[in-house]
């Protein structure tokens, strides 16, 4: 098992106002799975993804990542796990606008201390594969949204993570670009990377094996879509 959440609760408190974003969530993700999370706005999808990605700590409950209890680990331990095992794809791409596409994708390798020649090789191959090699020296603002999201996916992938977390990766794309990105995620998933994706789109969710429905911070249903061998 890659990731397990046990009785996870998340409460935000701002200026004395408490918002319960997640309530008693039990959930696990196996290596190689493709899971979608769906639900109405404000039901806690992003909160759940943040906890799964070790970006945020649960208020209560336990998170087990690769066999380790990590819900209360310190920030450098969690940064280490993110750096080595988790890739993120955001709705708004979040490429760093001062860096070229090439440099954005290369970035995670730089703090993994991968040698320059190895970086060059891996980034080049991946860009080739995601059909953005010709945009290598462009800056994010200079290329289309679809290309930006592919670059963001490439950046999430470059460190060969076990898990990719995507928060509405197609949310800012038209359906054709959205489909491209989904096909790419499926392809990665078929190569063994686990994918957890938040989405509003049932078309996008169709690509996954399992759909988790959230409502008001609670897990309502889980349906199996597709079975892998």
């Amino acid at each position, binding site marked *: 098992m890659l990731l397990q959440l046990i009785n996870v609760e998340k409460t935000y408190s701002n200026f004395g106002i408490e918002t319960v974003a997640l309530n008693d969530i039990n959930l696990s993700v196996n290596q190689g799975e493709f899971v979608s999370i769906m639900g109405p706005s404000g039901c806690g999808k*992003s909160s759940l993804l*943040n906890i799964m*990605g070790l*970006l*945020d700590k649960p208020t209560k409950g336990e998170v087990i990542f690769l066999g380790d209890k990590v819900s209360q680990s310190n*920030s*450098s331990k969690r*940064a*280490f*796990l*993110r*750096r*080595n095992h*988790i890739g*993120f794809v*955001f709705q*708004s791409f*979040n490429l*760093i*606008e*001062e*860096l070229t596409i*090439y*440099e954005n994708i*290369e*970035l*995670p390798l*730089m*703090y993994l201390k991968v040698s*320059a020649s190895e970086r060059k090789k891996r980034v080049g191959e991946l860009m080739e594969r995601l059909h953005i090699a010709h945009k290598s020296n462009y800056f994010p603002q200079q290329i289309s949204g679809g290309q930006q999201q592919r670059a963001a996916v490439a*950046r999430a992938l470059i460190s060969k993570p076990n898990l990719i977390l995507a928060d509405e990766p197609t949310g800012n794309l038209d359906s054709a670009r959205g489909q491209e990105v989904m096909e790419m995620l499926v392809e990665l998933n078929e190569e063994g990377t686990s994918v957890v994706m938040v989405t509003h789109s049932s078309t996008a969710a169709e690509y996954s094996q399992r759909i988790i429905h959230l409502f008001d911070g609670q897990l309502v249903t889980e349906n199996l879509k597709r079975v892998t061998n």
Partner: protein
Amino acid sequence: MGLSKDFSLFVASRLRENKGKNFSSLIARIAVGSIAIGIAVMILAFAIFAGFKHNIQEKIFSLASHIQAKKWVDSYSYEEIPVSTQLDLYQNAAEIPGVEHIQVYSRKACILKTDLEVSGAVMKGVGTDYDSARFNKNLIAGSFIDLDKKNYSTEIVVSNNIAKRLQLSLGDRLSVYFVQDPPRVRRVTVKGIYETGIEDFDDLIIIGDIRLIQRLNDWDSTQVGGFEIFIDDFDQLDVVFENVWDAMDPELGISKVTEMYMQFFDWFIMLNRNVVVVLVVILFVAGFNVISVTLIMITERTNMIGTLKALGSSNGQIRKIFVYNGVRLIVKGLVLGNLLALGFGFLQNQFKLIPLDPSNYYMDAVPVMFDTSVILLTNLGFIALILLILMIPTYIIARFQPIKAIRFS
């Protein structure tokens, strides 16, 4: 593609290339400007201070030697006790390491009297060994007394203050009453008028022939009031003082100019408190600007910080990005500031951009005297301090939750 190995340095270098479109680039320019002005003002303050100090000290050396030797007495005596020019110290001074010149002097209290006015004074008698070059810079009218006459000279040089007080001009004759028992009087002629700007001298000292004092004191030609010793390098005063101490005859006592005129040599006494306040304010402003520009840069880039955290960068790595950026501002500011200070100093010394009224100050233009080690130290101190200040705002990065940073983008 020349990619730097260090992640933080790399990102920092790219942030800079993308300047010109953010609010922070305006603030950055203000910060660079304030650092530049800050360092320039500091360097100039020290250089002008050094210039004043140097000028004032030169004035002092024109009437007081680096080291003074006279008969050692254990109680204050009004009358000078003579020492002999036959003493080893005087005869062999040139052999003492660091000593440049030795000359005799004698002092005698007197009262100057014209038909209208009276004024107290001290006559400083000098001999043929007197190095008048140093003193002559202070002459504003006439010339130095002629010491080559066969008999003692009755010429004197008076200060401008005394000349004004007694309404004396060049060539005027007046009576000098020497205070002794019984009092004696001599008629003398004003040969020159000097001005040092230092009241201790200008209110009191007139220059005359030492032979006149010898005669009045009933001394022979080997008897003098004391010796004035000049040394090669004023910075070596303490060392040479020891050398003189070792070489001198036991009946003598010596003292340093820095002790006799302490108020002109003590750095801390001279450094006006207002100057210190101004310097502290400058540092404070520069530090404040660096803090605000760094804070603005950080808040402008919450999105990037959040993304970097999500990708697994450590807080330290992200913090370094902003520290590097700050360092770049500091270096830019320092280079500019140093150029500004050196440029201004050069122009001031060449063209006297800021003149002074010599009657109120001791010189005609603001003096600027650079000292490489002082400039270096000022820069180093500035860097250290601003770097320290720069660390403060970067600590808030650790408190950024990655999700929040991304969420609010």
